[in-house]
């Protein structure tokens, strides 16, 4: 019970400080908006294979804007020795990982709502004709990306070199999620359910389980002493 309270306060602290300072979310949402806008503008001339391209572009926009936020959740702890204070908090590193994971999950979910909405409006692709299916894919893709991004964000924790390095470190690891999520999104757009869709979905589930578990187990090992 105590753990849950402490977990709640760790999540709350990040959300409150973001609400007060507005350091990350505006920049992230703006980047997501602009990228979606530009992608959709170029998509205008494409007639065939639209769904396949949109599937990937949606996830690329989410990935690149989202990694910016994931980098900040740990980088902000570097200022004024916040990280040392957080480590002194009487919880194991796994709980810190879970708290950061939750914050990143919420951040990415907000971004997803904006990006998906913009793609529906701008690109004229029926992304939301099966809202429940799209929601499932979005949630699982979010968990997959966030688990990897949070883990590497905690490892990286560097203000100076910025999020560029983190984006490039995470991409090879997150590539399976991006591939699976875009394939699943394409199948949602093409309204093809069936075994193939379920297979990609189960892959996303497996990936999420593996990396969330890896985060909980390994986080203590990977972060700075």
């Amino acid at each position, binding site marked *: 019970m105590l753990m849950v309270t402490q977990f709640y306060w760790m999540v709350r602290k990040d959300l409150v400080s973001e609400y007060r300072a507005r350091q990350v979310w505006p920049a992230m949402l703006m980047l997501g908006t602009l990228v979606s806008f530009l992608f959709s503008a170029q998509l205008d001339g494409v007639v065939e294979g639209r769904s396949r391209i949109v599937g990937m572009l949606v996830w690329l926009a989410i990935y690149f804007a989202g990694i910016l936020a994931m980098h900040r959740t740990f980088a902000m702890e570097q200022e004024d020795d916040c990280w040392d204070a957080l480590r002194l908090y009487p919880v194991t590193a796994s709980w810190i990982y879970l708290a950061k994971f939750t914050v990143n999950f919420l951040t990415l979910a907000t971004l997803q709502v904006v990006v998906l909405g913009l793609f529906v409006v701008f690109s004229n692709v029926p992304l939301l004709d099966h809202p429940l299916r799209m929601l499932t894919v979005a949630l699982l893709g979010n968990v997959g990306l966030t688990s990897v991004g949070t883990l590497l964000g905690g490892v990286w924790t560097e203000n100076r070199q910025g999020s560029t390095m983190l984006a490039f470190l995470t991409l090879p690891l997150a590539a399976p999620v991006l591939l699976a999520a875009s394939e699943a999104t394409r199948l949602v757009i093409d309204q093809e359910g069936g075994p193939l869709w379920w297979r990609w979905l189960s892959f996303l589930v497996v990936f999420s389980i593996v990396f969330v578990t890896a985060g909980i187990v*390994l986080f203590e090992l990977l972060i700075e002493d």
Partner: protein
Amino acid sequence: MQRSDLKIVSARWLTWLVTGLLVAALGMAMRVAPMEQSMGQVQRILYIHVSVAWLGLMGFAVMGVCAMLYLLHRNMAWNRWSQAANEVGWLCSSLTLFTGSIWAHAAWGTWWTWDPRLTTSLLLWALYSSCLILRGSIQESHRSARITSSLALLGLIDLPLVIMATRWFRGIHPTSPEMEPVMHFTLLLNVIGFTLFFSLLFLRRLRQLQTDNLLRKLELEALVNHPYPPLSAAGG
């Protein structure tokens, strides 16, 4: 200490054995093994391609395990193992992509297809490369080692998932085609020869990294106890 002391203490006979094996493997692959009927001479690429492909995977496993050992003990010695494996493994992985691409061109008329194994080896190469770039880009040694090791370890966890994901795209990569006994033997000889050869390169690189570390310590010590000539001359 003499100049020769620094030379790698590697058994001469081992070097000769590996050279002999490689020459034999090369001869078998180029001349003795029969020509494959449908693909012709180009099929002979297979012998080196399979060898480096296997070594690329092996190297990644070695790198990942050594990275984990570093993270557990925070001992730079393991990081040196992991770095040597990273460099040699990256070379093997790049050569796999190169030879594979030429094979693809000859066999399927295209330089690249998004076949499961091709995608997997491309991502493997990307992971190798990010680790390699990372090692060079961070100055502070323990920080560099920690981040690189984390990436290598997570990459090792990621790899089965990559294989799983890419399996579901339909594949055209041959798994284990039927071969004549001579071809089989040639392949085996190549794999063994290259494994030994790249292991030697790995050990040599490892020894260099160890020597570098030792020299660094000694240089620092010497700088404290024996200042450079101009300094000592001025100071008397």
